[in-house]
C-alpha cells in the first residue's frame, strides 16, 4: 500500500503546501505518490518527481482540469483510492473542497487541518479556533486528511520519481466553471512568508499606503483581520485567522489589531509577534513578544523610516 497526495499547483508550479504534505506523509514510511491533475501536467509533474522521497507521480490530463472542480478531482481520487492506505492534501481551498467528498464516497471519516501525525493513525488537530488541540484516532481502512502547512517542513528536491499517466474520468455534468478573479500581488505568499505585517480595520483607506512600503523593505507578506476585509480595505484572500490563512513566520507584526481569538488562531505559531496598538488593554498584547502602545498613524511612518 502507498500514500497519495493531491498536488496543488497553478498549472506551472507546485504550491508549497504540496511539499509540506510530502513531509507529513513521510511519517508512514510507505511509498509516496503525487497526483497531478491539470490541463497540461508535464511541467508540474516533473517538479513533483524531483521532490525527495517521492516514488511516483500520476498525471491526469483533461481540458476540464484547467480549472479543477471538486466533483471532477474527487472522481479521479475515487478511481485510484483502492490502492492507497492514505490520501492527503494541504489544508487549501482545493483539498478542503475535494477530500471530504472522497472520504464520504469511501465511507470513511476525514481529519481536517492536522498538525501532528503518529503513524499509523493518530492525529493532533486544533479545534475551537486553535484554543484546544484534540488527539484523535481513526480505525478506518483508508485515512483521508488535510495537513496544516505551517506545521510541516517544506520537502526539498533530490528525488527522481517515475511519472505515469492515467485517463481522466469524463467531466461532471452538474457544475461548470465560469470565471476567476485573481488577486495578484508581487509580495511573498502569506502562508510561507518569513515576515508578515498585518493590519486591522483601523488602518482604513490608508491600509496599503501605510503597510506596503514596510512590507516591501522587509520582503513581507501583507495580512489583514476579518473586520478589515469586511470593511473593504483589504481583499479576502489575505485574511489571517481561524477562517482565513494560518501563518507561522519568523516575525509577525500586528498593527491596529485588537487580538480577537479568531485572529490569534492564525498567528500563534509565529516565532516573534509584535503588536502596535494605541489601547494598552487590547488583548493582542497578551500574545505579543514585543508590544508598542502607540498611534499607528504615527508609528508606521516612523517604523518605515527606521528601516532605511
Amino acid at each position: 500500500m502507498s500514500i497519495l497526495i493531491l498536488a496543488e499547483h497553478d498549472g506551472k508550479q507546485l504550491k508549497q503546501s504540496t511539499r509540506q504534505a510530502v513531509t507529513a506523509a513521510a511519517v508512514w514510511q510507505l511509498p509516496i505518490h503525487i497526483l497531478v491533475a491539470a490541463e497540461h501536467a508535464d511541467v508540474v509533474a516533473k517538479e513533483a518527481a524531483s521532490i525527495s522521497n517521492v516514488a511516483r507521480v500520476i498525471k491526469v490530463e483533461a481540458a476540464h482540469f484547467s480549472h479543477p472542480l471538486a466533483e471532477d478531482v474527487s472522481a479521479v481520487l475515487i478511481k485510484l483510492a483502492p490502492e492507497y492506505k492514505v490520501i492527503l492534501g494541504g489544508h487549501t481551498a482545493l483539498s478542503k473542497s475535494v477530500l471530504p467528498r472522497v472520504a464520504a464516497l469511501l465511507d470513511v471519516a476525514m481529519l481536517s487541518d492536522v498538525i501532528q501525525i503518529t503513524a499509523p493513525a493518530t492525529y493532533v488537530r486544533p479545534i475551537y479556533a486553535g484554543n484546544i488541540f484534540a488527539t484523535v484516532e481513526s480505525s478506518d481502512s483508508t485515512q483521508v486528511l488535510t495537513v496544516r502547512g505551517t506545521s510541516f517542513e517544506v520537502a526539498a528536491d533530490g528525488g527522481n520519481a517515475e511519472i505515469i499517466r492515467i485517463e481522466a474520468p469524463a467531466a461532471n455534468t452538474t457544475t461548470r466553471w465560469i470565471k476567476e478573479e485573481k488577486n495578484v500581488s508581487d509580495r511573498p505568499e502569506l502562508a510561507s512568508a518569513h515576515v508578515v505585517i498585518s493590519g486591522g480595520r483601523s488602518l482604513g483607506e490608508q491600509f496599503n499606503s501605510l503597510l506596503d512600503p514596510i512590507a516591501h523593505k522587509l520582503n513581507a507578506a501583507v495580512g489583514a483581520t476579518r473586520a478589515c476585509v469586511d470593511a473593504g480595505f483589504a481583499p479576502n484572500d489575505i485574511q489571517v485567522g481561524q477562517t482565513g490563512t494560518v501563518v507561522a513566520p519568523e516575525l509577525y507584526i500586528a498593527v491596529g489589531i485588537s487580538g480577537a481569538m479568531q485572529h490569534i488562531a492564525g498567528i500563534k505559531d509565529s516565532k516573534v509577534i509584535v503588536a502596535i496598538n494605541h489601547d494598552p488593554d487590547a488583548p493582542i498584547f497578551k500574545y505579543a513578544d514585543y508590544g508598542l502602545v502607540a498611534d499607528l498613524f504615527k508609528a508606521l511612518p516612523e517604523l518605515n523610516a527606521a528601516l532605511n
Partner: protein
Amino acid sequence: MKVLVAVKHVLDYNIMPRIKQDGSDVDITGNKMGINPFDEIAVEEAVRLKERGIVKEIIAVSIGAENSKDTLRHALAMGADRAVLIQTDAALQPLGVAKLLKAIVEKEQPDLILLGKQAIDDDSGQTGQMLSALLGTGQSTFASAINIKDGEIEVTREVDTGNETVSIKLPAVVTSDLRLNEPRFLKLPNLMMAKKKPIETIVASELGIDFSPRLKQTKVAEPPVRKPGVLVASVAELVEKLRIEKVLP
C-alpha cells in the same frame, strides 16, 4: 423553490472553551450556546432569497440534543418557515451528520441545501461536501455571493488566490463563507413568534442510519503557551530589539 438549511448549536464564539478535568473532552456545560455563525449567514441568505420571491419555503434542520431547539428557534425567528430536529444525544461527526442530513433531503426534496463552511467548535469544514457527494449533486464551498436563475445557482467562492465563480445545476449544496451577507438582528416579536412555532422532532436512531462516530478522541489539551512579552517605549527601541532577535535586517 424550497431551501433546506443545516444549523448547528455550538458554544458561543466569544467563549474560551474549558477542558474537563480528566482531559477527555471540552466542557461546555453551563456555557452560552448559540447558532454557528456560518449557519446564521446561511439562514440569512435563504431568508433574503425568500424576500426576493425566489424561494417559497425554508426548512431549518439541526442534529443534536434537545437544546439544539434554541438554534432552530433562532432560525425560525430570522424567517425560516419550518424547523426539524433530528434528535440524538450521541457524539456526532461530519460523516454521520451528512448521512442524517441526506435522509432529510430525500424526504423534503429541497432545490437548494445551504450549510456553513465550517462549525466553529470542531472546525472540520467537511459536512457540506460529504452531503453533496452522498447525494450526487454539485457543490460549492466558501460562497461569498449567489445568484439563482434558470434552474442553476451561480456561486462566487473565496479561494486561496481570490474569487472563483461556478454555476451548478439545482439541486445543489452550497456552504457559506463570512462575506456572503450580514445576518439581521432578531426582533423581539419575531423571537416570541418563533417560540410558538412547532419544531418537528425525528429520533435519529429511528432513521435506520449508521451515524456512529468513526474517530476516537483520546485527549484534548491546551496548546503550548507563549512566554510573556515586553512593552517597548518607542519605535526605535522596537527596531533595536528585533535586530537583536535577528528578525529584522
